[in-house]
């Protein structure tokens, strides 16, 4: 008498349903956004962990720099938040020994840097700009930022905001820029002070900076575009 055969390799049959299950996850909007947000978070985690601060964006000769009038203006909110440049102070707060309001004069006591580096936009375009200013790392040292603090949050004169990992903030090419193409920063480009981070995408390089906060944890507001779905790390 033939013994009834159990259904052959049911586990295998189940495994074959995996692609269908995968497709189902992607078709369901809530699961889908969870999956792709996780994918982006994974990308950021790998980027941050593998970041080698010794590596630098290549410097360019003056002849290779994109002409100033062809350096694009991507003002996300306003062209000019109408900061009163005479009254302007940089408010530095958080995990620092010397919090307070710093004038441009205070900041300009630090060593000046000039560099021609590539500015890459998340959209895909790039330009080579000429930037002058002081190192963000020097400013952090000046104000006695906690060595173990993890983030620098950046507040702007418009409603823009950003936040950086400390390794990038202390990278020697990361500038608080007050000068482009050898001239004082214009209002459209972020006067009086903007970030220049050759190891980050353009949207991380906030303009019209009015405040820096050194912190150990980021709140819900991590970055104007980041909070809408861009990568927080945004590293090149």
């Amino acid at each position, binding site marked *: 008498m033939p013994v009834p055969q159990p259904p052959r390799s049911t586990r295998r049959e189940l495994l*074959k349903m995996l*692609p269908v299950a*995968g*497709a189902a996850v992607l078709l369901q909007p809530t699961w889908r956004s969870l*999956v*792709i*947000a*996780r*994918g*982006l978070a*994974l*990308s950021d985690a790998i*980027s941050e962990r*593998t*970041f*080698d601060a010794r*590596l*630098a*964006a*290549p410097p360019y000769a003056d002849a290779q720099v*994109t002409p100033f*009038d*062809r*350096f*694009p203006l991507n003002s996300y909110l306003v062209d000019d938040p109408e900061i009163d440049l005479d009254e302007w102070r940089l408010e530095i707060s958080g995990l620092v020994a010397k919090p307070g309001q710093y004038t441009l004069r205070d900041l300009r006591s630090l060593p000046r840097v000039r560099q021609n580096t*590539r500015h*890459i*936009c*998340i*959209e*895909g*375009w*790039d*330009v080579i700009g000429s930037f002058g200013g002081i190192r963000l790392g020097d400013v952090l040292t000046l104000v006695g930022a906690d060595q173990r603090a993890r983030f620098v949050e950046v507040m702007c004169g418009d409603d823009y905001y950003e936040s950086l990992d400390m390794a990038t903030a202390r990278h020697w090419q990361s500038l608080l820029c007050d000068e482009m193409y050898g001239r004082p920063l214009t209002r459209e480009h972020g006067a009086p002070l903007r970030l220049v981070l*050759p*190891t980050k995408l353009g949207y991380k390089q906030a303009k019209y900076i009015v405040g820096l906060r050194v912190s150990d944890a980021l709140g819900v507001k991590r970055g104007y*575009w980041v909070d*809408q*779905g*861009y*990568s927080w790390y945004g*590293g*090149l």
Partner: protein
Amino acid sequence: MPPDRLEHPAIVRVCHWTFALSLLVLIGSGLEVFAAFPSFGEKLPASDLPVPLSILRIGGWLGGALQWHFTFAWLLATATAIYFTYQVVSGNARQVLFARRDARGVWPMVRYYMLVGPKPDMTETYNPLQKLAYTIALLLIVVSLVTGFALYKPVQLSWLVYPFGGFRLTRVWHFAAMCGLLAFIPGHLVMVALHGWCNFAGMWTGGRGRP
């Protein structure tokens, strides 16, 4: 090949469908990314190329498209690493990689498909024309992954950007690799359709007469 061995080992089948899904998503989201700056030139003065039809794009906007793109890039990279490791270690790579001895067989196969030549003898899983197409497709996947990583990390991986001729040209290579894959996929689908259900099902079940 011994008769009891499956035409398509399980790892190859899993990788094949992972490639298919991730390439679909990567091409769709890549077109959305391209739509944000549809040019290979300078931002100023603008020299925009036509924007891909929105029905072909995935992600809704640049930020959404990049989330899709990164997620599936990791999936594709993982599957590619597993696939190549398996193919090389198991020796199964010979089944698919185009070798010099296959060169003679390509033209007769083309003639056969054009209905102007006799059917060549087939002794292997893949005929020489298939091997050529699959080898090029695999190469294009590798090029798109390498150029993709170079565009993602042009500072940390500047040595990867260099051989492609700089950041801007790397973007062109990345796009060109996608165009190559876009040329492969319809041909591949037509061939699958012409070869019937059993051939198609083989990529799910393993092949060799199993349903």
